[in-house]
Structure formats: structure tokens, C-alpha cells
């Protein structure tokens, strides 16, 4: 089967990431009503080198065009909002889109900074056809409110080229794709400006004309980069692509379009992030117990805090309730310009189990409890006690990994022993009266930890029952407590 690629180009990623805007799907010939538009402020994204790179419909209506300089744009509209271009945001947005699409398409590649390449030919049998698949992709993209153009192509570069040209057609007919490709102007291709000028000067301005020239002739005048590009565009050369694998953890950073000074207003952008988290967790059937939130304050240190839900939650609604409580106690020193949500540990949701005879009970099993505790406390906080056949008290009792005790029958059953042992015997510093004893333990001469002690049970003046021993050189130590 011929490989078939679908390319999605997102021209306004950063602009679309601002929650206050809701641009409709790309409809090129849309006429905007001035009344509708009047509610929105024109917003542009400014790149230092290229001028205005992204703009919303309101800005377009005001007469602002892409690649216009800031001065001209500001002259066209007084209330223009300018946001600096941030490639980080675009990257995150693109990754978020890729995560969503991964639910329906398996082979996704971050092909450029503003576009995703999808391999669709291997998905057709699953969905029963290209149009059905395209419908599903569209439903995945619809809630994101992002503007995009798309195209299919028989090679990755062809799909990209057609999508950049806003061909906006989905087809698996190679003739149609080839036809469309041939009409594309060379300026849309990834050839360098120098090469395009060179080609133009000999009368080659479209892809069709370029394809007409044999490779061997091109080889004489252009370097291998051009040849490789052309070969890959035509599908003659193999074009290896790296497919993406979704991250196991959820992390999202959003920059706010307006600085927020009141903590209750933060809930709105947070809700958006939490909805994404909900989707992320729902699709994996997982829960999380802890959200890490970072609020970026202007000119001040970031505020970081953690919100926990003991039961484990995934719903945005529940988390928002908890966050609202947390935010109530939060003092903001400076306006918030951005926020980030981190989720470290997630765990698989376990359905509530009911014992028919015992009524309702807590839901988790012994091992789930251990892993839950370990996740929070670390591996070195959980133990189980273990007995070892040894006469030395400090060796007879040991802590081992939680619930991994191999109970062995003790050969030696010691007489009365205290319930607590001090980590190290400490010098006896108080007055005690001896009640029972002595019990002599003299052992360990074979493994270089010799012990010669006379143990006594004693009471302190406060009425505590303690376990003390005397060494041959008449030193007294406290080793245990009979709780």
C-alpha cells in the first residue's frame, strides 16, 4: 500500500493558547460581522525579527496584516494588544495537540515547530476509510479551538507543502495530490531563497516545472540538499521520521494574557488546565493524589504549592474545589503572569470493592496501601519486624522490607524481652532499682562482635520498666524499655 501522510499546520498556536480567545475553525472566506468583532480586542503576537507573526480576527479587521511592523500596526489601532512571541508556548501547545491526537492515530511526528505529521495509511482499516478517520481527527481537535490547515500527501514533505499552502483537502487519490502539488509556487517550499531566485531566473517558478527537470541536470547546478528535498518531496527518496510517544506525566504551562491580581480569578485559567488533566487521566483510567501548582509572579519569586486529595481524583470539578480552598489562603505579592500544573504520581484507579457480608469497606488492597505509602514517604520509611536467631538482642530483632518477612521458627526462644530497643545502648544516667536479673549473654566471639553482658530488669524512679546491662568493666547501659 502506498504510504499516505496527513499534515496539520497550526499557524496561530500561541494566540490560540490564550483562553480569552475563541477563534473558530479555519474558514478562509469568512466575513466577520463588525458587531461580533467589537467585543474582542485586537491581539497580535510580535516576533522581534519578523514583526507581527500571529493576529486574531479583530486585528485582521482593523487592517493589520502578518509581517507588518509594530509601528504600522499600532497606528492602525490604538488599543492594540501586543504579546511577545514565545516558542516555548507553541511547543507545549503542539505537544498537547499531539497527545490528544495520539488517542486516535498511532503514528504522529513533530515535523516542524507549527505542524504535526500523521501517518494515516495504516489507520484506514481500523476506521474504515479516510473520511471516517478525518472526522474523528476533527472531533479530537474541535474542543481545542485551534486554527489549522491540512492536507494529505504521498510523502511527508508533500503533505507539509500542501498544508502550508492551505490546500485543505483530504484524499487518497495520488493523481489529485500530484496535481495539487504541481501548482504550488516554489516560495512555499523549503528551498533556500538563493536557490529559488536561481530557479526563477531560468523560468522555473512552480513545482511542476521543477519536477520536469531531470535530477542529473539539477545536480550540476544545485547542491545535494536541494536534490534530497526534491527526492523526498516526490516520494522517490526515503524520508525517515521519528514518531512521538506520549509522556507518562502530565505537565502544562500556560501564560496568561492578562495579569491576574486576585486569586479567585485564577480559577478560570486553572479550570482549563484541569480539564486537560481530566482528559489525560480519564483516558488512562488513572487518578492522582497530588497536584503541583506553580504561579509565576511578576518580578517576584514563584509561588509553588501542592494540593492533595487523599482519595485520588481526576475530575476537574473536584480538583477545582480543592484548589479554591487552597487559593483562599494564598497571598499574592505581585500579579500572576503564568501558571503551571505538574502531576508527579498517578496510579491506576481501583474500583470500589464491596464485601457482600461485611458492608462497605475501604477500597484498596494491602499492596496498594504499601505502594501508596511508599510513593509519599519514600522507600526507606516502611518496614516489618523480623526475628533472627541470635543471642545478641540488637541482632535478634531486625527491620526488613515491608511485608516480606519469612517467618522462621526461632531456635532460641529468649526469656522476657522489652518491647522497645534503643538504636544504640546508652550509658545509664539515672537511678534505677533492679527487680530481676541477672541474665548473662556472652557470645559473638566468633564473628568479631563479642558481647559479654549481664542483663537486668529494673524500674526507674518514674516507675518505668527498663532493661539495663552491666559490662565486665562495670559500666551500666540502658538498652530497652518494657512499654
Amino acid at each position, binding site marked *: 500500500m502506498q504510504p499516505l501522510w496527513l499534515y496539520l499546520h497550526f499557524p496561530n498556536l500561541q494566540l490560540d493558547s490564550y483562553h480569552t480567545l475563541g477563534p473558530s475553525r479555519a474558514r478562509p472566506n469568512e466575513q466577520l460581522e463588525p458587531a461580533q468583532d467589537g467585543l474582542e480586542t485586537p491581539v497580535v503576537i510580535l516576533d522581534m525579527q519578523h514583526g507581527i507573526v500571529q493576529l486574531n480576527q479583530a486585528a485582521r479587521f482593523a487592517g493589520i496584516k502578518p509581517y507588518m511592523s509594530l509601528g504600522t500596526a499600532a497606528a492602525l489601532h490604538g488599543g492594540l494588544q501586543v504579546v511577545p512571541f514565545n516558542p516555548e508556548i507553541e511547543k507545549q501547545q503542539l505537544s498537547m495537540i499531539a497527545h490528544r491526537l495520539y488517542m486516535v492515530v498511532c503514528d504522529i511526528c513533530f515535523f516542524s515547530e507549527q505542524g504535526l505529521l500523521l501517518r494515516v495509511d495504516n489507520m484506514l482499516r481500523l476506521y474504515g476509510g479516510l473520511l471516517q478517520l478525518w472526522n474523528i481527527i476533527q472531533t479530537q481537535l474541535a474542543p481545542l479551538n485551534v486554527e489549522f490547515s491540512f492536507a494529505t500527501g504521498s510523502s511527508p514533505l508533500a503533505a507539509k507543502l500542501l498544508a502550508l499552502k492551505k490546500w485543505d483537502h483530504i484524499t487518497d487519490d495520488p493523481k489529485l495530490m500530484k496535481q495539487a502539488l504541481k501548482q504550488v509556487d516554489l516560495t512555499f517550499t523549503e528551498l533556500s531563497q538563493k536557490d529559488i531566485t536561481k530557479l526563477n531566473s531560468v523560468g522555473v517558478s512552480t513545482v511542476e516545472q521543477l519536477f520536469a527537470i531531470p535530477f542529473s541536470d539539477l545536480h550540476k547546478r544545485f547542491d545535494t540538499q536541494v536534490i534530497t528535498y526534491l527526492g523526498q518531496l516526490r516520494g522517490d527518496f526515503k524520508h525517515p521520521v521519528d514518531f512521538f510517544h506520549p509522556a507518562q506525566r502530565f505537565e502544562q504551562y500556560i501564560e496568561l494574557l492578562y495579569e491576574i491580581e486576585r486569586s479567585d480569578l485564577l480559577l478560570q485559567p486553572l479550570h482549563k488546565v484541569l480539564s486537560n488533566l481530566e482528559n489525560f487521566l480519564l483516558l488512562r483510567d488513572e487518578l492522582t493524589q497530588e497536584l503541583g501548582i506553580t504561579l509565576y509572579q511578576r518580578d517576584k519569586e514563584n509561588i509553588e504549592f501542592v494540593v492533595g486529595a*487523599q482519595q485520588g481524583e481526576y475530575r476537574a470539578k473536584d480538583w477545582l474545589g480543592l484548589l479554591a480552598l487552597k487559593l483562599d489562603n494564598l497571598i499574592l505579592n505581585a500579579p500572576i503572569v503564568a501558571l503551571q500544573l505538574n502531576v508527579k504520581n498517578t496510579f491506576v484507579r481501583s474500583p470500589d470493592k464491596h464485601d457482600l457480608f*461485611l458492608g462497605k*469497606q*475501604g*477500597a*484498596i*488492597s*494491602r499492596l*496498594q*496501601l*504499601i505502594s*501508596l*505509602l511508599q510513593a*509519599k*514517604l519514600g522507600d*526507606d*520509611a*516502611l*518496614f*516489618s*519486624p*523480623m*526475628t533472627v536467631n541470635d543471642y545478641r*538482642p540488637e541482632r*535478634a*530483632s*531486625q*527491620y526488613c522490607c*515491608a*511485608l516480606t*518477612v519469612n*517467618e522462621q521458627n*526461632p531456635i532460641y*526462644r*529468649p526469656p*522476657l*524481652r*522489652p*518491647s*522497645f*530497643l*534503643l*538504636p544504640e545502648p546508652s550509658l545509664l544516667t539515672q537511678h534505677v532499682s533492679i*527487680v*530481676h536479673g541477672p541474665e548473662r549473654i556472652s557470645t559473638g566471639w566468633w564473628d568479631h562482635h563479642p558481647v559479654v553482658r549481664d542483663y537486668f*530488669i529494673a*524500674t*526507674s524512679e*518514674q*516507675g*518505668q*520498666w*527498663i532493661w539495663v546491662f552491666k559490662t565486665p568493666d562495670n559500666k551500666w547501659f540502658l538498652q*530497652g*524499655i*518494657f*512499654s
Partner: protein
Amino acid sequence: MNSTIDQLKNKRLLWQASQVSGAHKTLSSGFDSLDAYLEGGLPEQGVVDISSPIGIGELRLLLPSFVLRQQNSQKLLVFIGAPARLNAPMLVKMGFELSRILIIEPKNAKEALWSTEQCLKSGCCDGVFLWHQGLEVHQAKRLQFAAETGEALSVVLRQQQPISFSLPVALALELAPCPEGIKVTVTKRKGGSHSQPFTVNMAQAWPSLTRQPKSSNIVPLPRFHSLTG
């Protein structure tokens, strides 16, 4: 006759002390005298607040009940934040199965409380011992709720500290040393009343860790020579 009272009763706005006492299930503590004072023994679930110095026999008083629990179910017994290392031979001697004992050493009091809550509500622990010095009302409430969810009993041990307020727990005991056992004062019991301090005699269970009291009917001989005429 007392229609107002009946109405309030029907709406469950009024309760009588007699209704409550039978409602709480108890489990024998292993000491008859304590059981008698507590009308049955330790509560089956909930939080027990113990205020006691270390080493006067507080675990010896409480643990037998948990041995019974461990024998009756397959659940875990958890010790959280113990003041020193628990001695395994002692636990074996008391009758515990070590493979179902979990010891947690949290880094701070907050983590201790968190792990206690998790263990209690998990439904796979029978009992949780927590050493915590300053339990607050809302924390006790949460633990109590978690214990009811997971049908577990939590024992919170703290060293004697006078607290002016009463924690919302099922049972609160104050323990003090005593030569023949341990002196117990019930400071709070759900559905019960306060009692005078009483002594739980441990001479039978722990002969080596008690002292025999001097009987009051033994009068030392007077130190004078009898008149011989």
C-alpha cells in the same frame, strides 16, 4: 403525654444516654478489670487517645486486644512513629504474626498523620498505633472518620501533656505507673461517663514486670521487747 419529646426523638434530634451505650461494639482488652470499667473493652473502631509516659506498660495494656484482632482477621497492624525500634522477639512472644505487622518511620508529624489516615481508611489495616505529641481537634476528627471508613482502631499515644480541650475520639485514657500494674483514668468515653482512677493488675499476665504490693494486713512487728515480768 410528652409529645414534644417524642417528636424530637422521631426526628432524631434528641438522644438518650441509654440508647448510645449499647450501640458501640467493643472488643475485649484482655484484662478483665479494664473490660469491666469500659463496659466490654476497647471500641471496635475509632480513635483511642492515650496519654502516658513511655515504659510503664502502656503497650502491654493495649496490645493483647490487637493480638485477638490479628487472629480473627487477615489485616495488618501498623506502628507509626514509634519512639524507638520495636523489638521483634517481644512481638512474637505476645502472639503476633510478624508478616502482618507494618512499621512506618515518617520524617515528620505531618507525614505521620497522613500515613495514619491512609492506613486507617484503606480497609486492610486492623489497628494503627500512632505516636504523636500534639493531636488537634480537626486531625482527631479526620482520623476518627478514616477509622470508621476502614473499620479500624487507631491508638494515638502521647506523653502526658495537659490538654484543656477534649478531642473528638471514641475513648481517652490517662495512664500512670503503678507497682502492681498500671493506673488507668478514663477521661472520655463515647456513650459512657468518667470514672475514678483504677488499677489494672498485671501480676498474672506479666509476673516479672510487676511488684507485689505490701499487704495492708501485714503489720511490722513492733520494735520493743515484751515485758517479761
